[in-house]
């Protein structure tokens, strides 16, 4: 699918029922910064508006899930209001915070790095250069607490998911799958490819903030060596964020 086709999928927002306790405001069906920007803009607007009956909103790549109490909210009124809010807003293209995330690439930290490089006919150092050279947008947090789904992977690095998923990958794994990239937050199963590992804990139950990243934030990766890893790992263990907030 080429870029112009992608554009044509930007559609008028529509409401999809999700049982009696939720609805989804859908802005499109592709991974697109403009669509995601609208999702986040509506999320922000609703946070400010504090609509009665709405319990929780969950932004995703392309839609905003709105959880409500069906005994408190009138569905027809709520949908009407959400649709008019959604039509009125402009895409939130201003990014949130930008984080510099240290990564040790390859070896025991990224066991698939060499294979992925070979598959794409490039040296491992070229792969690292391309992966760490991009600015990634966090489209959504999901799957696991703090797990960040990223857009912005260099198309040369797009790699089909593994045929056989792994039962578990370590917390902090830096992974790619298809055209997507991610920072894994906790140990979890995954069919994506492991390129490296970060000492950053995007979810740390005993730290304030518990969650480091939000949808709409940006991430740049900073290659580090094992010695630096050891120091940062100790700091992260002690509750420091380790990821640095940087200006674009």
């Amino acid at each position, binding site marked *: 699918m080429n870029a112009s086709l992608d554009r044509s999928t930007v559609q008028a927002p529509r409401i999809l029922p*999700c049982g*009696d306790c939720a609805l989804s405001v859908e802005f499109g069906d*592709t991974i697109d910064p403009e669509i995601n920007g609208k999702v986040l803009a509506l999320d922000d607007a609703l946070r400010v508006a504090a609509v009665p009956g709405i319990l929780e909103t969950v932004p995703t790549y392309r839609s905003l899930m709105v959880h409500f109490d*069906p005994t408190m909210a009138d569905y027809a009124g709520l949908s009407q209001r959400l649709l008019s809010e959604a039509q009125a807003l402009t895409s939130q293209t201003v990014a949130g915070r930008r984080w510099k995330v240290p990564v040790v690439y390859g070896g025991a930290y990224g066991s698939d790095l060499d294979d992925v490089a070979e598959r794409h006919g490039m040296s491992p150092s070229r792969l690292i250069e391309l992966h760490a050279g991009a600015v990634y947008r966090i489209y959504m947090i999901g799957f696991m*607490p703090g797990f960040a789904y990223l857009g912005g992977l260099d198309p040369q690095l797009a790699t089909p998911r593994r045929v056989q998923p792994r039962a578990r990958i370590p917390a902090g794994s830096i992974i790619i799958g298809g055209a997507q990239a991610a920072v894994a937050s906790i140990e979890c199963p995954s069919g994506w490819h492991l390129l490296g590992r970060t000492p950053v804990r995007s*979810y740390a*139950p005993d730290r304030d903030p518990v969650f480091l990243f*939000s949808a709409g934030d940006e991430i740049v990766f900073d290659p580090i060596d094992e010695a630096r890893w050891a120091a940062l790992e100790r700091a992260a263990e002690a509750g420091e964020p380790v990821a640095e907030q940087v200006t674009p």
Partner: protein
Amino acid sequence: MTALVVKSCGPMTSLQDHGRYGYQRFGVSPSGAMDRRGLALANALVGNPPWTAAIEFVHLGGILSVSGGDLHIAVAGADCVLKIDGKPVPPRSTATLEDGQTAEIGPARSGTFAYLAVAGGFSAPPQLRSQSLHLRSRMGGLEGRPLQAGDLLECRETAHPGAHMHLPADFAQEDGPIRVMLGPQDDYFAPEAIRAFLESEFTVSSHADRMGFQLTGPTLAHAKGFNIVSDGIVEGHIQVPGSGQPIVLMRDRQTAGGYPKIATVISADLDRLAQVRPGSPIRFRAVDRDEAVAAARAFKAWVESLPAALIPLRWTPTTEDLLAANLIGGTVHALDPVLPE
């Protein structure tokens, strides 16, 4: 300090309350009791607010003893016999566990999830405002894990645990097909697939846990492929992966997913679905929003009416009373293993 000591229990025994809401945007599953009706009833019987954390037993029961004082307890949800020092307690009733006594929760005779509530609740520290265990993210529960033999559960102090109560009649649940609302991606399925979904019998497979129930039945063909860009997941969503065999997402569901969702179980019927055992048949019926909301209101009203609906327990039951009371507990699948008590 009063505490319950776990002598033995099944492998997925955990603390569960109403769930962990407000953090789905960070990928945190709400979790919470699989059968909220059972949780609310067990809590009402010991004078607690409906969503206080209780011990959730999964199919198998457990044995617990109390130390440090007397404790009011109650069991509800799946049909289990509660015995205190070997003496059975009438169903839907409060009981006192005196210091040093042992409570035995028998295996479920019908249903799967049973709840043991204690007056005042447990003092395990909440994580993100909930004591519910979500095992995959090691959040909540006792140190982020299920209960096991040797665990000591501290109980909160209660000024006055109240009288022994009994609920004469349980919540009148629908016993027909599980009610669903179509969507959000029913347009990804051909009309024949929707018809097959609503007109066929499915079986809850052995792959059924707190996260989701895998169903087996007719293959539901997709009309537009089965890869969508991941969007939000709510409990009760019925997603259909490439195999065409639907999965109902339950309390421990993930917060986002990439398969089309043909329909969503209405909130009032999720407790009933949770108690359907692996190997048992189910059917679905599509309803409109009005019926779903009316059912949600009826459930809310029932929970709110519980304190007033309880009557003081004066009944000293005979074995015959107990057998009679339990006969209405539900049906048991002929192929289910009979577990030793």
